[in-house]
């Protein structure tokens, strides 16, 4: 019943770590299916051979002898192409396994309330919220503001209405106060670009 249960906090850290990484379930399933299909074929041939029946596709003996004599018996271009396809598939699997695979998400409210719920936000939601704030500060229409949120950077692009100057500092201050209120982790740095050419008739 106590708020500071020992088991809770490390589990929450683990959950947050898993939520901000992309899942490999689909790739893992594809890999498993590939291995299952190959193993099932091998099982079929081994079983057929064990009971002394003729092979289904190729006699294992013949297959092995062909493998031993490999550069001969097949056009080198075809052999190279098969190799390239296999290597490409292998590279895809390997990179899927090794790369960090971060999702475009931020943790929110780090240290706000340790006992409360943990919060994870998609970068897209952050961007649309910041765009709204920047639009109100610059007094322009939604089409004139574009916000890009990446892991460590927030870039706000504003195209002012022609003849109405936009105060870059006030936009920066507004966006920065919003970002500070969100308490994102990792905390991004805010940059505001005001375009030199204006929009007519907005």
């Amino acid at each position, binding site marked *: *019943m106590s*708020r500071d*249960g020992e*088991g*809770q906090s490390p*589990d929450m850290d683990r*959950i947050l770590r*898993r*939520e901000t990484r992309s*899942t*490999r379930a689909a790739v*893992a399933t594809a*890999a*498993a*299916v*590939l*291995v*299952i299909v190959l193993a099932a074929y091998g099982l079929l041939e081994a079983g057929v*051979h*064990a*009971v*002394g029946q003729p092979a289904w596709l190729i006699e294992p003996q013949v297959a*092995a*002898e062909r493998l*031993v*004599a*490999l*550069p001969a018996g097949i056009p*080198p271009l075809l*052999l*190279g192409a098969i*190799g390239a*396809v*296999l*290597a*490409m*598939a*292998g*590279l*895809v*699997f*390997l990179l*899927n*396994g090794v790369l960090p695979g971060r999702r475009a998400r931020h943790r*929110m409210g780090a240290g706000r*309330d340790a*006992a409360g*719920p*943990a*919060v*994870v*936000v998609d970068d*897209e*939601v*952050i961007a*649309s*919220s910041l765009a*709204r704030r920047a639009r109100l500060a610059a007094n322009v229409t*939604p089409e004139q503001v574009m916000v890009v949120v990446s892991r460590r950077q927030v870039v706000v692009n504003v195209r002012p209405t022609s003849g109405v100057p936009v105060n870059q500092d006030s936009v920066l201050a507004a966006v920065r106060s919003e970002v500070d209120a*969100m308490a994102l982790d990792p905390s991004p740095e805010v940059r505001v670009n005001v375009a030199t050419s204006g929009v007519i008739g907005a």
Partner: protein
Amino acid sequence: MNSTPTLLNRILVAALGLLLLGVGCLLMLLAAVPAVASWWRAWSADAWSGINAAFNATRFPGRPESWLWILVALALLVLIGLMVAWVAQQGKGRADVLAVEYDPGEVPGDVRIGGGVAEQALKHALAHRPDLAGATVTTYDVKGMPALKVRLLPRQGVAPHLLADEVSVLVSALEQAVGKNIPVLIHIGAGARTRFRRAERVR
């Protein structure tokens, strides 16, 4: 949040990738470099004669077949079983009980609160908010402990920190009602439903 074995996935996928990459590179080298071809012939002929000897030594008495084939078939069966078990681990971890507690009162028995209670209550509380395009609540089993995942789809321009604070209040009210602390994850996301609807104007 589910109990997909992420580390195992990474290791097995990377191992398969390395294997395929190695075989692919070997085939490409065989096709392109003559020196590799001659090395391969020498090496593989040795290996093949070794395997042949093993098969010859393990024949059934009086029959031409080797019992090594049965071993190979068994090994492949085990491999298939392991792969099926691996696939079955993906995306597991949904739970349907939120709290189990022994009731020390007069009535014998214990108390169980299903995950549906939290899911229905939170969903109902969130259903009529104008700033949300959708909300889902699911109960997961995280290392034997029930945990809630609240997925919110706010409309464009909604400030996520204010939304999170308001949902936190709802969650703590739920915890009061259930009488137990539940680890909760709030995921504020974007999807096709939020992207193509107009922004919320008044809030």
